[in-house]
């Protein structure tokens, strides 16, 4: 049989799925053990036990100075920033994506402008944002919005344009006005794509969040990582990175489930 036609059974697929993760942990354990055998005070690859202790300390024992559980307060601070920014971006993308995709006049006016804006490297704008908007939450949220909204607008506008012309014509012959067609034909068909687009922008969104927190913040996951970097606290940095990854994976999975539950038809073509 051709390689392209050989498929793993479900059990093998599960094993294959887990293998890289297990291998990574084993490789880390071996490397860490070797370095610690050489030099017990090595900080670069702390033992798994050291990391568990660190997580215990950060997650379950109140910080003596502020009385807060650091891991949770960091997580809350970061997620509030991330989700407000993503919420704002989603709204902007929905409104402008539909306007650009449906109305030729708006497309002529805005499409080249949005394409240009999306080429500006957002991190290069960060100093400007901090100067103009101050060091508070506004600047961080704005950075994420500038970073992800243009790409989402373009993605959605493209989806609108890709809708078969026949569908729009059909809706017109059913007596639909521009507004009604937007509401009943275009919007429902791009909402699933909006969710997918949001998932794809999670990576860049985290990138901008951590960059902003690294430079100016007093809490947040990115802030913590860059704070403890000064003490080479790998036992904190590794778990934090893993935690951020886990949060991103969960969000992405939840969004996909949400799409399938709310828009069951959007999964019918895929089998």
């Amino acid at each position, binding site marked *: 049989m051709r390689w392209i036609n050989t498929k793993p059974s479900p059990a093998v697929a599960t094993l294959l799925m887990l293998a890289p993760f297990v291998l990574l942990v084993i490789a880390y354990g071996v490397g860490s053990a070797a370095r610690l055998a050489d030099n017990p005070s090595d900080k670069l690859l702390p033992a798994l036990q050291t990391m568990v202790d660190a997580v215990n300390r950060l997650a379950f024992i109140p910080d003596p100075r502020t009385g807060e559980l650091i891991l949770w307060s960091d997580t809350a601070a970061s997620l509030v920033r991330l989700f407000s920014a993503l919420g704002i971006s989603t709204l902007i993308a929905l409104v402008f994506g539909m306007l650009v995709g449906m109305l030729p006049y708006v497309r002529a006016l805005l499409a080249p402008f949005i394409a240009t804006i999306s080429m500006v490297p957002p991190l290069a704008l960060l100093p400007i944002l901090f100067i103009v908007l101050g060091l508070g939450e506004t600047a961080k949220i704005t950075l994420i919005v500038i970073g992800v909204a243009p790409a989402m607008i373009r993605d959605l506008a493209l989806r609108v344009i890709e809708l078969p012309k026949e*569908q729009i014509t059909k*809706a017109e*012959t*059913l007596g*639909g006005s521009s507004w009604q067609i937007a509401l*009943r034909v275009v919007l429902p*068909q791009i909402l699933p794509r909006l969710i997918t687009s949001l998932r794809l922008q999670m990576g860049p969104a985290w990138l901008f969040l951590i960059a902003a927190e690294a430079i100016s913040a007093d809490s947040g996951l990115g802030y913590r990582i860059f704070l403890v970097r000064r003490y080479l606290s790998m036992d904190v940095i590794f778990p934090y990175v893993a935690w951020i990854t886990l949060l991103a994976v969960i969000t992405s999975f939840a969004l996909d489930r949400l799409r399938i539950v709310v828009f069951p*038809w*959007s999964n019918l073509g895929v089998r």
Partner: protein
Amino acid sequence: MSTIVFDKVWKEYGDQIVLEKISLTIASRAFVALVGPSGCGKTTFLKLLLGEEAPTQGTITMDGVPLVAEPGPDRGVVFQRYSVFPHLTVLGNVLLGKEFRSPVAARLFGAARRNAVDEAMALIAEVGLAGSETKYPAQLSGGMQQRLALAQALIMKPKVLLLDEPFGALDPGIRADIHVLMKRLWHETELTVVMVTHDMREAFTLGTRVIAFERPRDRPEERERYGSLLSRDIYIWPPRIAGEPSLFAPDRDDPAIPLGLSQDDPAPQGDNP
């Protein structure tokens, strides 16, 4: 009434001439079958009728009034593909035209909705989709989707129904069923039909008139400079008249048909024979 008149209509896309001096009068309640080789401009002709494209030269009028330059509810359409909305159920698809009556919400509520649902259900049953109301188009076969598209167009009670190779992808059995349905609808509703088809048999079985487009010059180097002309215009004899039973069984080459009226003629009413 809906008499459509094409007066010396030309259609060009850039340098490419597609249709040349098409002059044609389509009588009210006619069933025009449009045939011609691929690429001769049949879909373009329908787009002109639909108002999706404007003629480069010439005028198109309906009952003496120039055609509105955008698609509207007086002209229904079934395309070969993409005619139904994938995000709506069968019922939702048929209901949509009714729901567009509500200008802002584009949805109906209460009694208005119940009436519309009743009407939609009746139409769904009529095209043979009863029982599939809650399915999405992706869960229907090609033939069911085309029947759905038909029901969706018919709920608007259009004056003109445009069909672009609507039954091309169907197997002969389903196609025969749909032909019966088409004929009945044409007899029973106030419809003028223009149907594009590649199937001569279909054209002559259903039409009251068969017209053909053809490029008189079709060598590759000439293709851009010359468009298609109306090359044939055949009135079916004996004439079929909407709403009246035909004199002869229309499908002469079909298997034996029982005596009396043929199955796709309307039921006799009153003191008609």
